[in-house]
């Protein structure tokens, strides 16, 4: 990717930085189209604001992913939920049994 003729001359100003940044973010997010990935690879070396933008976005993305504490669901919430689901299954089963009993009574 490092073309020796190009590498020395980097653009100091990006004419279309907002569009560039959307593309750079899509690349970092793994949601860029093949065309965008291609464009990114062939042009990122040429533009200083875009290189800096890429590095900054990358560090923020990593910071969000790795530095912010991930909260885990408290065990008592899990237990309570299981009880509630179990109860609703039980009631459902009970209703089915009840209907069958009523049917039996009315059939006889």
């Amino acid at each position: 990717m490092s073309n020796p003729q190009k590498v020395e001359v980097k653009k100091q100003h990006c004419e279309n930085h907002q569009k560039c940044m959307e593309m750079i973010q899509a690349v970092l997010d793994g949601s860029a189209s093949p065309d965008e990935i291609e464009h990114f690879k062939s042009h990122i070396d040429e533009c200083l604001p875009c290189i800096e933008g890429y590095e900054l976005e990358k560090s923020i993305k990593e910071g969000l992913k790795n530095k912010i504490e991930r909260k885990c669901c408290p065990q008592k919430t899990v237990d309570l939920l299981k009880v509630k689901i179990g109860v609703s299954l039980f009631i459902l089963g009970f209703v089915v049994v009840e209907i069958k009993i009523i049917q039996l009574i009315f059939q006889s």
Partner: protein
Amino acid sequence: MEEDEEVLDIQPRYSKEEQYRIFDKEFMPHIDSMYNFAFRLTNDEDDSNDLLQDTYLKAFRFINSFQEGTNAKAWLFRILKNSFINDYRKKSKEPSKVDYQEVETVYNSSEDAEYESTVDLRTESVQDMIGDEVAMALNGLPVDFRTVIILCDIEGFTYEEMAKILDIPIGTVRSRLHRARNLLKDKLRSYAKTMGYKELR
């Protein structure tokens, strides 16, 4: 509410045993991610517990509209996000809709100044920050902007999945993320300034 009903139509499909199995095997493994999402939205442990339980009970009630083998995590996140908007957002201390629109308008008008305003936030400053500072900057964002960052950067959803979770087109996901990140950079920049990170370099 209406949104939920439209997607979650009830067709008796799974037997009771299957419902139990799907709930255990497909839904329960995501409970920590779901709790973390609830916590990042509400910033309150009690609210997170309530929101999580409401979501899982709703998921169980509408289990027949879940297609086995499809993306359970995205399906659950969508229910949680809708529950949050319908039931929790009203009572929370979030900035109102007006504030949100204001932020978006103000931001749009200063779009041209984007590069100039980001130069003084350095990669090294961000790398030096601790989790609490990054979390506080994230918490400072209006909820719609915070949500896209949580889904993308913390949970790693693709734009396509986010579009489904949020019921918005992929183009809107992209532009909202872009705006959210610029706002986040503003917050991080003010932290970097107060902490004197810039001077350290």
